[in-house]
């Protein structure tokens, strides 16, 4: 992406009824993000846990899919990538805010102005282009969230969805109904959103 683009701009364009422009921004941003995250994951020491292998596998196969034209759509209400990017950005935002507050010697009181600054902070963190650091945070966040699921059936749906497969294809692969896949995606979104403040 060139010019000041960000998740807030994608979402703004989507809300303004310009889904094609938002899709274009998201696609460009997303490809760069995943490629950067994959490079960062490859630079890690050998995996010590199965969950890490799962995250690596998700990135590997998703990157292959992305090169073949598969990528998450902005209008997919179940897309986990958008959620992951937003959750990671909020988390980084909070960390930066806390660091700045500590440097200023501030206390624990959270001013209203801090809330108002959150949108601007999100745009700052996500930026016009994904940075390697932010991509690494997204990759790490994915690894943590897959590991924390502790449920192989939910994990299988999360990985397959993030690899870009359709709900119908996931249902067929897992031998369950499409409704079950949709429900599990709802569960994942719920759990990931609710745990945002904990992780």
């Amino acid at each position, binding site marked *: 992406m060139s010019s000041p683009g960000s998740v807030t701009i994608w979402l703004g364009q989507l809300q303004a009824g310009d889904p094609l422009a938002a899709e274009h921004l998201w696609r460009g941003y997303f490809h760069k993000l995943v490629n950067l995250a994959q490079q960062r994951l490859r630079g890690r020491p050998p995996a010590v846990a199965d969950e890490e292998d799962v995250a690596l596998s998700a990135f590997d196969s998703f990157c292959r899919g992305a090169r073949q034209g598969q990528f998450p759509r902005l209008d997919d209400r179940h897309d986990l990538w958008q959620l992951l990017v937003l959750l990671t950005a909020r988390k980084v935002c909070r960390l930066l805010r806390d660091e700045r507050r500590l440097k200023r010697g501030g206390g624990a009181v959270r001013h209203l102005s801090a809330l108002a600054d959150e949108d601007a902070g999100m745009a700052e963190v996500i930026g016009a282009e994904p940075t390697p650091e932010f991509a690494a945070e997204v990759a790490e966040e994915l690894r943590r969230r897959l590991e924390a699921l502790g*449920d192989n059936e939910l994990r299988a749906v999360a990985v397959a969805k993030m690899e870009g497969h359709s*709900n*119908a294809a996931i249902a067929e692969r897992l031998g369950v*109904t499409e409704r*079950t896949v949709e*429900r599990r995606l*709802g569960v994942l979104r*719920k*759990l990931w959103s*609710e745990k945002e403040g904990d992780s």
Partner: protein
Amino acid sequence: VSEASLPSIADLPAAEVLPVERQCNRFEAAWKAWREGPRPSLEEHLAGVGEAARDVLLCELLHLELVYRRQRGEIPSLADYVSRFPDRERLRLVFAGPGWGKSGLLRRVPP
């Protein structure tokens, strides 16, 4: 009539989500294994979750049951359920809701 009117897993507190998910998985596994004899029981699978989650669970279990009955060549009707679950309007919504996918679910509202 909109599926959005149905209670959704998104409306539940996080603590209620996994118990609902587990019951749905058990129910689906029971239907996949069923060949003859007593069918998997909706009522039995409704137990084990809190009151707040029961409406969501009923809708999810009923969706599953309709899929598997349909796959076995049956034509489920509302009458099969109204005597067991008094919320007729909710049952109608599950029967009529969109998003049935390609798994052999009913699309029409039964008489």
